[in-house]
């Protein structure tokens, strides 16, 4: 199941683990990404916390935690090669994985059609 947030994140749920990345629309709007700072594994995050810093040539932006939970994995490859975020935002350039307390929270987010309506 893939869900989308109003902040242009995609969330992929497998078991009780959610993988989070940003959409192609977000990557295009950001422009060339040159720096990514990810949270530490083991961090407990709350929905709305600014946990990722992403900087393009033009400006700095934050990515917020879309759910409550524990960071269980981060994608160091995008720290080493920030340009991956522009090249493969929906695949290899995922940001982090969160272990959920309560999976029902994802019901609040948009499905793909709703997200496409929002950005069109």
């Amino acid at each position, binding site marked *: 199941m893939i869900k989308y947030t109003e902040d242009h994140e995609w969330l992929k749920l497998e078991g009780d683990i959610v993988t989070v990345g940003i959409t192609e629309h977000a990557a295009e709007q950001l422009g060339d990404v*040159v*720096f990514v*700072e990810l949270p530490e594994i083991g961090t407990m995050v709350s929905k709305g916390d600014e946990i990722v810093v992403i900087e393009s040539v033009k400006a700095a932006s934050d990515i917020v935690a879309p759910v409550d939970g524990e960071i269980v994995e981060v994608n160091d490859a995008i720290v080493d090669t920030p340009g991956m975020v522009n090249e493969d935002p929906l695949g290899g350039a995922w940001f982090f994985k969160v272990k959920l307390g309560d999976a029902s929270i994802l019901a609040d987010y948009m499905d793909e059609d709703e997200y496409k309506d929002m950005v069109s």
Partner: protein
Amino acid sequence: MSETGILSSKSLPLAGLHSRLGARMVPFAGWNMPVQYPMGVMAEHSHTRSAAGLFDVSHMGQVLLHGPKAAQALETLVPADILGLAPGRQRYALFTNDDGGILDDLMVANRGDHLFLVVNAARAEHDIAHLVQHLTPLGVRVEPLPTRALLALQGPGAENALAQLLPDVAKMRFMDVAVFASIWVSRSGYTGEDGFEISLPVGEAEAFAERLLAQPDVAPIGLGARDSLRLEAGLCLYGHDIDEGTTPSQAGLLWSIGKARRPGGDRAGGYPGAERVAQDLAQGPSRLRVGLAPEGRAPMREGVLLWDAAEGGTCVGAVTSGGFGPSCARPIAMGYVPQALAASGTPLWGDVRGKRLPLTVAPLPFVPANFKR
């Protein structure tokens, strides 16, 4: 970027062309400007360094000064040597205030019987009023040129590309100016690369730009890459790296003050703030604009505070321009630090989101200039 900003801003004469080229527009200095094209900032930057980039800089102010005493009169407002500027040559200058602060930076060209000035968009209204107020009583006629567009063609391929349209530009050297009927060309720019700035009537601009863009080397370049190119070249952006609170010596712009205008020169002083500039020349400025090289990957942008220690210590200055340098492949910045900390290699720390990250003072420019002297 707000809708209001877009709607209340003026449109460039080439707005239709930018739209057809797929530009993303943003409001800047009261104008809707192309910040990038589909190529993207990074590729546009690299294209300019390796081939040729075409910039629409029609937002900048263009002004003519007429009258036999125009050069002499302009020297009452700028510390540059204008009387010593030969016909067909251009020079960088500063408008100063009574405290020696910088009101704007500009280009001045000697066009024989008149001077041609190019000033910053955000300061154009101010500068024109300033010129009228002070130079009209000295017998100078100030003629703003709102119906002329300004293009910049920059990069190692610029000469060949422009010479297809105007063959004689190949003979020009850095800071030469020449007139080709309605088209005025200077060999100058804001990227550190060889190139040209081309002033032409608004009605001719789009066709001329299209003829340049039709050449294989030439791509349209937006404001985003213009900023990263000038930052790598160590060039100041008015309102950021220089303003009314910075003096020419603090900004490292004393080279723009000719010998004749310095203490002991034939026409020493005679411009606003001359005493302060003389004092800075004698004693050295209290602080200096320097290059800054962050050690890590995090860009340090305008406003980042600089400290002399990783913990505790003193706040010694701030970043005035900063970002990622595509040709340097790392973050770069400029800022002001006390003279004692201005030597290249001096370690400092920048406060980025509450963390002090290491950087070192670095020589400017970050990328060597590639002018045709």
